[in-house]
């Protein structure tokens, strides 16, 4: 073996070892700092992890753009919807008086909240864009209570890592990390453009998450669960979206 090829072999060996160790360390750090999305397995895992990790590092505290009243879209698009179930229709017939949001999981005081209770908390408004992964968008003014306020009321425990939330439609449930859950623009929204939130836009209660695409803003919210591990929910991919082939993180 010539000197050159030996040297080449040693250099390659050192580089490969450093590469493997480097990747191992990066993976460990990413896990530790919550930079790995729950749908990181499979062929799309690398791209998803790069997107989620970099956006989480860049945008942990940044605020979604807010707009002026004059920029509000004339008609907020009610997206195509499956027919609503009987449970919803019954509650609708009763004027949503019996609508309850149950909050459980890693909390000190699990509770069930009526709309009136949620509306008794400090109300906040935001004029933000709702953008769909398909490419269309609209701007509307949303009224509601920040999710972080409700998490304070129930006493979310410090080791909480994710918030899972469910629609009355059993097919639709999502989850977000604590950076998004505690974000000041993450609302439990009950109003739109100065009025009650219409059924077409997710009324009477919708999770509003303006830094992610529309499918993360689940309509008709009835339950919120706080957890430190998403493995036990559905297929363990984080939410219904990855089970249907869509990314869990929808910041892009």
């Amino acid at each position, binding site marked *: 073996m010539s*000197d050159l090829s030996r040297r080449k072999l040693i250099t390659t060996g050192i580089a490969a070892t450093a590469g493997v160790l480097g990747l191992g360390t990066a993976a460990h750090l990413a896990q530790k700092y919550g930079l790995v999305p729950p749908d990181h397995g499979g062929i*799309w895992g690398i791209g998803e992890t790069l997107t989620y990790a970099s956006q989480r590092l860049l945008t942990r505290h940044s*605020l979604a753009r807010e707009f002026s009243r004059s920029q509000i879209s004339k008609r907020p698009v009610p997206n195509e919807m499956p027919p609503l179930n009987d449970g919803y229709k019954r509650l609708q017939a009763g004027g949503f008086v019996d609508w309850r949001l149950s909050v459980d999981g890693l909390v000190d005081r699990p509770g069930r909240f009526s709309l009136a209770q949620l509306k008794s908390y400090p109300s906040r408004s935001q004029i933000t864009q709702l953008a769909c*992964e398909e*490419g*269309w968008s609209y701007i509307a003014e949303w009224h509601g209570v920040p999710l972080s306020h409700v998490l304070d009321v129930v006493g979310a425990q410090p080791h909480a890592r994710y918030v899972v939330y469910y629609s009355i439609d059993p097919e639709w449930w999502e989850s977000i990390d604590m950076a998004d859950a505690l974000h000041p623009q993450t609302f439990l929204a009950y109003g739109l453009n100065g009025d009650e939130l219409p059924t077409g836009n997710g009324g009477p209660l919708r999770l509003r998450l303006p830094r992610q695409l529309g499918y993360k803003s689940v309509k008709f919210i009835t339950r919120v669960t706080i957890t430190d591990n998403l493995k036990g929910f559905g297929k363990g991919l984080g939410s219904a979206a990855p089970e249907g082939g869509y*990314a869990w993180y929808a*910041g892009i």
Partner: protein
Amino acid sequence: MPNSASAVPATTVKSRHSALVRLTHWITTICFIALLVSGIEILISHPRFYWGETGNVLTQPLFRIPIPSSRALVPTGYGYVLPDQNGWSRYLHFQAAWALVLTGLLYAIFSLVSGHLRENLLPGKSGLSWRVLSREIANHLRFKRPSEDEAWSYNVLQRLTYLLVIFVLFPLVIWSGLAMSLAFVSAFPATVTLLGGQQSARTIHFFVSLLLVLFLLVHVVMVFLAGFWSRTRAMITGKAGTDKEGT
């Protein structure tokens, strides 16, 4: 000190394209095709374009593409709805975008450090004269087959086109893509406001992609004109030469 020169064969021929240029060229090719296919699939879910911040089925589009859609919500005039392919398309689009951006960074750093940019891409002073430029344009318009020595370097029109694609169109398509990311623009709002809004960014993304496709088509036609096998072999193995000696 080992005599490393003795290990290098005496008959080493200078490569037409360096190994890094060849590698990044083909990675970019694969990524671009993946981005194009997935981009078309995503476009099918809403084949309408707008200007400004917002746009949807209830607003007037800037223009629409007369194709069927994968969403029943979009009025297309076709009596059927295509299957939804957005899930894997979006995963693939972003994965390929990451691979392309990282490859592009590697290429850009290499181009600056190795002199590839200065020697092979930037046109020389003489090349930028009107006489040379007009001759090159005339040659291209006549579909004239390039001379033998052009197998070893890019002509001025080629240099300008590559510079435009690498340093204008690719950065612009990445920028307009990021401008559609709600989370990214929350941290860097100027990314989208400078382009005139989220829907404007989407429209710009579409047109820049069209220009890149146009470049791809012209590029492939030119490769055929110059000798498909010799030029493709040069980009795979690094060896330059004519078709005659190659086949």
